[in-house]
């Protein structure tokens, strides 16, 4: 009776599942081709490496989720024996999992701090090996707005900080007009939308405000929005973009690639006004010094938001790997995958799919040397 009762729905469920599909049509021995309309990642130049096989587990930043998926797709297409799973659970989860050895590599919106580093602290690495922080993903953050009758908006750091901290509350504020000669602003309240989730995007945005407008932005940089400043909040990049699009007289910040048709603020950097273009964001990374006291191949960066001519608001996400893996087969896979990640094809494919900024040739050469040192 009981067995029948439980068994019947299960049987129906299984039958329904079986009739649904027996397997995924795009999976199997033959590498799948990318479908039309997709921005196809080319096969990596190291096509001979297709003898690789095995599984890699990665976890971390959701900001570089699409880029990771693109790299994984490109890499798996060339190495059909390899499966890479990257869980975009968040940078914190990624760092924790990498430290405990639960995953083979991590993605994070910030590098490991000095106190988190240290030989032997990482589960997947050998006892005398440290972790490497490699900046593989640069994503400019755009300040997006949706204001009736306004297509172009130029702001300096103090004004941006004033708007987002709730000190400037109306669009007709003279501080906004000062940098926008000839634009008429409506007399209506500003709805400033920020991220409700703890995020690297917020951390980088508030870091910019704290560095560039310290007199207005009195809070420290943090992934969590300072509650003292109020404003409207929305979950994730998509949430902020949709809230700004759906509301009226709104402003927010989000990955530049997701700005869509929204207006984008041009930000004052030094004496010039700079937009969130790929080149200007990559400059930010090139101009920023490496954190001192790390290993030879560690590229944890001290982002300098006031560098002349560079777009100051960008998120730099790191791939974290071991200097020396306990498991040599894993090291082999990670090395090949990282090489593809920082290669021209890899960076271009990610740019097409995720809209991020590719790393500069200079940084690429440095990272190449770092990747080669992995053993």
């Amino acid at each position, binding site marked *: 009776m009981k067995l029948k009762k439980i068994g019947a729905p299960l049987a129906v469920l299984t039958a329904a599942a079986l009739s649904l599909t027996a397997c995924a049509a795009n999976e199997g021995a033959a590498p799948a081709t990318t479908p039309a309309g997709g921005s196809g990642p080319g096969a990596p130049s190291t096509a001979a490496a297709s003898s690789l096989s095995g599984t890699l587990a990665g976890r971390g930043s959701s900001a570089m989720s699409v880029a990771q998926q693109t790299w994984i797709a490109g890499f798996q297409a060339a190495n059909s024996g390899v499966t890479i799973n990257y869980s975009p659970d968040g940078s914190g989860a990624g760092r924790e999992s990498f430290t405990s050895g639960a995953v083979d590599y991590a993605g994070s919106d910030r590098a490991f701090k000095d106190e988190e580093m240290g030989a032997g602290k990482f589960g997947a690495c050998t006892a005398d090996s440290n972790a490497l922080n490699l900046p593989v993903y640069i994503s400019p953050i755009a300040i997006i707005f949706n204001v009736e009758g306004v297509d172009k908006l130029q702001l300096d750091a103090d004004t941006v900080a004033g708007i987002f901290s709730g000190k400037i509350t109306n669009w007709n504020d003279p501080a906004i007009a000062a940098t926008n000669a000839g634009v008429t602003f409506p007399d209506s309240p500003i709805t400033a939308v920020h991220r409700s989730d703890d995020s690297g995007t917020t951390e980088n945005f508030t870091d910019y405000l704290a560095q560039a407008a310290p007199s207005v932005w009195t809070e420290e940089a943090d992934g969590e929005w300072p509650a003292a400043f109020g404003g409207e909040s929305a*979950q994730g990049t998509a949430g902020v973009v949709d809230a700004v699009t759906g509301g009226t007289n709104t402003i927010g910040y989000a990955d530049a690639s997701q700005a869509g048709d929204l207006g984008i603020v041009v930000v004052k950097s030094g004496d010039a006004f700079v937009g969130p273009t790929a080149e200007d964001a990559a400059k930010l990374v090139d101009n920023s010094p490496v954190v001192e006291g790390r290993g030879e191949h560690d590229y944890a960066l001290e982002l300098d938001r006031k560098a002349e001519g560079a777009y100051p608001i960008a998120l730099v996400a790191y791939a974290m790997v071991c200097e020396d893996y306990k498991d040599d087969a894993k090291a082999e896979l990670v090395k090949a995958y990282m090489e593809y990640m920082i290669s021209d094809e890899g960076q271009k494919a990610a740019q097409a799919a995720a809209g991020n900024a590719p790393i500069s040739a200079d940084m690429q050469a440095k990272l190449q040397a770092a990747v080669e040192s992995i053993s």
Partner: protein
Amino acid sequence: MNKQVQAPHERAAHSDLIPAKPRVGDKVFTGLSTGSGVAILVILAAVAAFLLLRALPALTASADDIAAGGYTSNLAWLDGFWGWVLPLAFGTIWAALGALALAVPVSIGIALFISHYAPRRLAQTLGYVIDLLAAVPSVVYGLWGFFVLAPALGGLHRWLTTYLGWFPLFSGQASGTGRTIFTASIVLAVMILPIITSLCREVFLQTPKLHEEASLALGATRWEMIRMAVFPFARAGIVSAIMLGLGRALGETMAVAMILSGQNRISFEVLTAQNPNTIAANIALSFPEAYDLKINQLIASGLVLFIITLAVNMFARWIVSRRAAFSGAN
């Protein structure tokens, strides 16, 4: 849904008192069912141990530790962990109460409609239609609340703050996007509607036919029959159903996280952009990027939610036990 037995006019002795020979089947069955009950206790003990263990560092941390490496309090009069978790606990209860206030009358109405008003042929189908609301996953409710409901309620928000702004709940500047705790409560109400309705419906249907027919025969109108025969019989079941709904409303994560424009603050205004956040939504929003003490704090807030639910349920059990005489299996 049960066959009415017309037989005994007097209640027989309690079933436990009927002497019967112990049988193998009985022994096995007793063992199995007791074993499952114990298994639940073991699972819960494991969950509780896990929660406590991970929450302990946050519970024992000093206010300075929290200020240095954790989520800090925004309250002027209370700092440390409790100052941080109190607004969240408030938001959780606030949103859930709002949802209950909206959902309970509607659910009972629907359940009555299906059990006592709708044509019998239609009743089953209509029940199925309401159950469909439960078929919608919370992610979809989140998307729907964000893209359909919140913009649709924008006008109502502005109207209420303009004309009824003197009422404390409706004061403040209306949200520009409609993503307020008011909207979140409506979505929560829709989400808990089917579970309350379904249980109430079943309980209403179990009302002894004799009671109903007796009261109708005495000249009661349909509503009087419901009030005097159905409700007293179903009271325990209704409370139970409400508590299940409340449990879901308290713990709902994804939909609230997607819809609510929340902050760590205590506020009774339901129509502004600055709303108190809920514990579950806050865990989902903050957990991915949390580390060290922050993780402990988030899990400790989960423990607080646990305790809130516990208190609510104890209260409900107390109400039900006062009315135990109406239960069918007494």
